């Protein structure tokens, strides 16, 4: 959030033109903490709300700030379709591997085998590899960082503001209460240390290798994975056709 706020200040875009849209969840509350135009919508619907805002007023710089559960589970359909259309909005997805606000339930990114209150014996499901999903869906920019990569994260958020089309950054965030405790990571700090030990910056690595498995010593890859220039979405105008 700090990175987003700093990026807004550094963006050179008037603060009045920045709009943040969020869904429901811990990170959904971000909209209420920022002194810019902010819309805290229903669970899963931040992206289509943002699409409406952006298309009705293309002057706005629209950022969606929400969690993995909100964006990739209940809002998963909107996520892939907005990326497919390549609507010119930026999405910051805070991934804490669980539903934190409601007390740590299984989410779409919960690693296989990880314990949550609704997977007490370990998750029987395979999680989303979000960068892979977004790349396949057609997003123009896809990156992943953690909360320890402050500098890179801010740089990429800033880049996303000016990047035409759909851009997406996954931010791995610690959730000591909801996720850490159940998985023998005692403190938020420990989860941060885990990121520090295991994260490998690997720009441009094959995206199918970006899955996260906390049970093994497998590295967690972070970096910029996709940066391309597919045509962004534009509403149809007759004068463009004739």
């Amino acid at each position: 959030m700090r990175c987003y706020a700093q990026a807004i200040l550094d963006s050179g875009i008037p603060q009045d033109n920045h709009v943040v849209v969020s869904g429901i969840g811990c990170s959904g509350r971000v909209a209420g903490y920022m002194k810019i135009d902010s819309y805290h919508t229903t669970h899963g619907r931040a992206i289509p709300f943002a699409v409406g805002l952006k298309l009705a007023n293309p002057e706005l710089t629209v950022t969606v700030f929400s969690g993995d559960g909100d964006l990739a589970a209940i809002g998963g359909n909107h996520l892939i379709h907005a990326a497919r259309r390549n609507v010119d909005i930026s999405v910051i997805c805070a991934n804490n591997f669980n539903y934190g606000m409601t007390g740590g339930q299984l989410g779409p990114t919960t690693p296989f085998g990880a314990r949550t209150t609704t997977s007490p014996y370990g998750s029987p499901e395979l999680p989303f590899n979000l960068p892979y999903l977004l790349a396949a869906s057609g997003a123009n920019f896809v990156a992943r960082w953690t909360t320890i990569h402050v500098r890179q994260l801010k740089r990429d958020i800033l880049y996303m503001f000016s990047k035409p089309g759909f851009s997406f950054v996954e931010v791995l965030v610690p959730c000591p209460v909801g996720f850490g405790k159940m998985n023998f990571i005692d403190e938020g700090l420990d989860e941060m240390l885990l990121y520090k030990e295991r994260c490998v910056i690997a720009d441009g690595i094959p995206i199918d290798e970006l899955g996260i498995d906390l049970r093994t010593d497998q590295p967690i890859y972070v970096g910029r994975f996709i940066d391309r220039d597919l045509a962004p979405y534009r509403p149809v105008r007759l004068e463009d056709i004739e």
Partner: protein
Amino acid sequence: MTSSGVLTGKHFFQGDEACAEGAIAAGCRFFGGYPITPSTEIAERLAHRFPEIGGVFIQMEDEMGSMAAVLGASAAGARAMTATSGPGFSLMMENIGLAVMMELPCVVVNVQRGSPSTGLPTLPGQSEVMQARWGSHGDYGLAAFSPWSPQEMFDLTIHSFNVADRYRIPILLMADEVVGHMVERVVIPREDQITRWERKRPDPNNKDAFEPFLAEDPDLVPPLAYAGEGYRVHFTGLTHDELGYPDMSAETHHRLVTRLVEKINYNSEKIVQTEDHFMDDARIVVVSYGSTARSARRAVKDARQEGIPVGFLRLVSLWPFPTNQIRELADHVDSFIVAEMNLGQMALEVERHVRRPVTGVHHAGGAMMAPDRILDAIREVANTGYTHLR
């Protein structure tokens, strides 16, 4: 067509087409929707027309996304609309509640088909009139209109935008398949004769002191600031205070929800619309709406020919309900008949207000009710001495 793209003159239009043209005439320039029979022609026409006039047409991935996109566009200041039918209407319900809570004006057209579930996609129904009132969770108020002709699909679409803007509420235009698909003459006035009600807007010279959810006027409607105007507003579906920020107290919650409900109650006389005929000496009144009202009017005329003192009341607005008119009628009318294409929804509401059993002429939907059935009910009520029957 005028320079702004609004059609004028006489046309032979399908109801759905007339609705699309009404939206354009009302200044609607954003449509986010998902195709669903029998409302699809609205989307199709706007997909064709908006690129000509600078509107935004986007076909969303589902109805939840459609409704959210409409609200986003509304937050950015656009007059925005979607159109759907039963299954999609159900999916929109959560964000219709968000529209109520954020007080974002918008229009949702529901061309009703046979329900529940997938029901009868290509055939008519009127069984979502109670869902229109209570379908989203919680206590709230909104307005719903019921057109009975392609002409009214045009007129009431414009009116829906006006009422939405005036009171900052979602408007549900509850059409049905008969009205949506039938083709009839539609007269479109000159653009300068089309009334547009303006939204209440904040004072741009006093941006810092602006409280986006403070309703200072007696009508309980706060001014609406758009994204990007520099007011730095916060909108949330959570219970919020006058500044718009979440406040999880019972007091704030009660104050907010009460205002949202009272906003409609206070202004209901201005929102309610009915049409009546043959009321002067009526001892029986037939209440109906939408396409069924066409058959009801025919039946009433035929019954008058037979000398039965029967009147005709059409609900142009379904919600808010015309409480005062119905109560007043109940003072000098003996019996009420309600004709509708469902198994008794508005009949309950009429009954609640006239405080006596009403005669329902009901059908689950799938075909427009023929005048004969209503005429039979009128005769039966007349024969039993204007008392009620069940």
